[in-house]
């Protein structure tokens, strides 16, 4: 009962504060941005600059063939501006260096073709078709996208020249080499013989939905870590914890009630975003249980850290460091090639993965269950250590 009344009192105080409404405002704002600005399935912005060194009729035949297959479609003619620039290009095979020097700005009209994802109809790549290799290379250098020249010799054989930026990995370059070892017909014949076995997943988060797990973890749970510390220091300034020493209520109840305030705020702000975006996809019961447990874990961490410092200024460095480190899995979430082993040990990594599965309605119960158990135990442990520290000092 004491815990409940403390929680209700804390909620009442929190609801009078600015922070509570900022949380709700940000959730509503992000919801509006996601619904009205972010496309669910946007076209790719990937671009390439191409030059076909071959008779016009051969080029047109190749294009018609690709367009008929549905993989490519004609785009608009676009005007490109090339800035004055000078640079060197090194042939990786021969070591030969070519120097380019352009002192004047140049505008060119180029045809575009759009490479299409046949499953979704979305644009995979926009290719700009140049009349000469020099312009394609110049654009590639200044814009940072790949350029390629396809050359046909007198006997109809094709060869390729790729212009890379230089920071691509060796593996990526190797793929470009090995792609051009057999004719397209030979490769296509082999492609038709490939056996694919699907493990059955069909749902994939769209662009809009992908933002939601990040918001729930970073803007919700992790921010709770920060805010609970702010609450504690505010109460410390006002002498609330000292008052607890002369009341029959235990300090742990006070600390737990603070966690509940954070959890309530996180539940409200997360629901504002999750329900309209994901609709009926998530397993809501599991979602809310997981949200409560992980928010509890992060807020318990906040309580423990706050027990070591007298003021937010003194705690600021540690607080900031922990938050930055815990945000690193966000990079791995968005950049799938960046997934080093060490990042998987940060607690926000499994939480992000857990929320992603739950929100998609594809909950891996063993995974989510084990993460929940770990957070519950860790949260209880951190809370009890924080409780011991606060009881000892009685000066939060």
């Amino acid at each position: 009962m004491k815990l409940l009344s403390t929680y209700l009192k804390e909620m009442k105080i929190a609801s009078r504060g600015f922070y509570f409404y900022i949380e709700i405002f940000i959730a509503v704002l992000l919801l509006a941005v996601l619904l009205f600005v972010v496309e669910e399935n946007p076209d790719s912005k990937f671009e390439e600059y191409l030059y076909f060194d071959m008779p016009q009729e051969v080029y047109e035949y190749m294009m018609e063939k690709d367009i008929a297959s549905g993989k490519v479609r004609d785009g608009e003619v676009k005007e490109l501006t090339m800035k004055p620039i000078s640079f060197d290009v090194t042939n990786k095979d021969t070591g030969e260096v070519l120097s380019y020097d352009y002192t004047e700005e140049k505008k060119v009209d180029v045809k575009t073709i759009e490479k299409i994802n046949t499953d979704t109809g979305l644009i995979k790549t926009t290719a700009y078709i140049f009349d000469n290799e020099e312009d394609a290379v110049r654009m590639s250098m200044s814009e940072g996208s790949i350029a390629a020249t396809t050359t046909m010799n007198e006997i109809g054989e094709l060869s390729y020249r790729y212009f890379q930026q230089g920071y691509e990995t060796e593996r990526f370059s190797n793929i470009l080499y090995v792609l051009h070892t057999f004719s397209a017909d030979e490769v296509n014949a082999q492609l038709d013989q490939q056996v694919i076995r699907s493990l059955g997943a069909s749902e994939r988060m769209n662009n809009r939905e992908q933002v939601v797990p990040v918001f729930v973890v970073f803007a919700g749970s992790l921010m709770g870590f920060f805010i609970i510390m702010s609450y504690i220091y505010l109460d410390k300034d006002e002498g609330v914890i000292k008052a607890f020493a002369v009341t029959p209520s235990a300090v742990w109840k006070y600390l737990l009630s603070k966690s509940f305030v954070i959890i309530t705020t996180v539940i409200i702000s997360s629901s504002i975003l999750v329900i309209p975006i994901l609709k009926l996809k998530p397993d809501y019961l599991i979602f809310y249980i997981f949200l409560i447990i992980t928010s509890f874990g992060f807020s318990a961490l906040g309580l423990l850290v706050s027990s070591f410092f007298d003021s937010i200024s003194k705690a600021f460095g540690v607080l900031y460091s922990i938050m930055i480190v815990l945000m690193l899995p966000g990079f791995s979430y968005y950049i799938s090639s960046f997934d080093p082993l060490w990042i998987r040990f940060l607690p926000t990594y499994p939480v992000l993965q857990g929320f992603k599965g739950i929100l998609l309605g594809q909950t891996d119960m063993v995974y989510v269950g084990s993460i929940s158990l770990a957070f519950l135990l860790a949260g209880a442990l951190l809370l009890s250590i924080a409780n011991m520290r606060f009881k000892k000092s009685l000066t939060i």
Partner: protein
Amino acid sequence: MLKKITRIFRKDAKIATRDAMLIYIVLIPVLLAVGILFFAPGVTDSAIKFAMLENDTEEHIDYMEQYIQVELFDSESELERRVSKRDDVVGLVPRGNGYEIVVEGNEDESVIDSAKTMNSLYELGATRENTTAEILSFEKTVPPLKTMLANMLILIVIMLAGMIISLGIVEEKSDNTINAINVTPVSQNNFIIGKSMLGVVVAMVSIIASLVIMGYSDINWLMIILVGVTSMILTFVIGFIQGLGSSDVIEAAAGVKLVMVPIIGSIAGYELLSDKWQWTMYWSPFYWAYKANNMILSKTADWGTILICLVAVTVISMLIYLIYMPKIRKGLS
């Protein structure tokens, strides 16, 4: 006047050093810069990974490792569990005389196409030696993602500088020293400049150190310092508005969260919006600062564009300052 401003700056620096906050704030962006330096090469690797079995032939594993990142597993069930995880890892297991491609089922078409192509090339016996392709390189060393991360780090540092000012003022308010300023020879303007200097100095030191660590020592430093300093005008304004408007640290923290909205929005807008929609972000000084920094870090900046960005950042920041000036003055009274 300069003496008074410097005195306020020295006092703030002393307090911040005592709390180790100053050291953390300079150190953390530097540590992040080191992190970016180390993991940036990994993010430019191919996006697709193969999960293969340890008991597969060494020759097959070696072949694939030349082209794709490979993870090895000791059983097919372990491999399938890996494929089922959220990222695009495709399994490759021996079946009969060939190989079966195991997919989760929700991969992008291009991922499955890439896996099919790599397996086809292996089965055809394709090697780099027989290629009809040649590769030329501009020999750039900085991937665009690293530039994006470095640019984001700059904005984080700028935001942090605002936080320093904001928290400093909240503490001054709780100590009732704000009112005391009015009975000293220090004018309100001097107080504002003096309080802001710590944030500016700390932010600039952090930005310069971080960029040097990340390998950007050959950029146009004058441009980056000019963009940094003009962005700081906004930092002063935000720091003061937050600090004076907040009655306690909770409100200051909430204010920080609120400032993150236009910062994240500006980065997302610049990176994700198509050219025809970029104008929708012109209201944000963070957008102009991010744009200018992006051009400077990628070494494509020209003075004309940078000056436009500088003017935009300054004018918008000054407008915000003028709008909030009465509130700042009232808060200091």
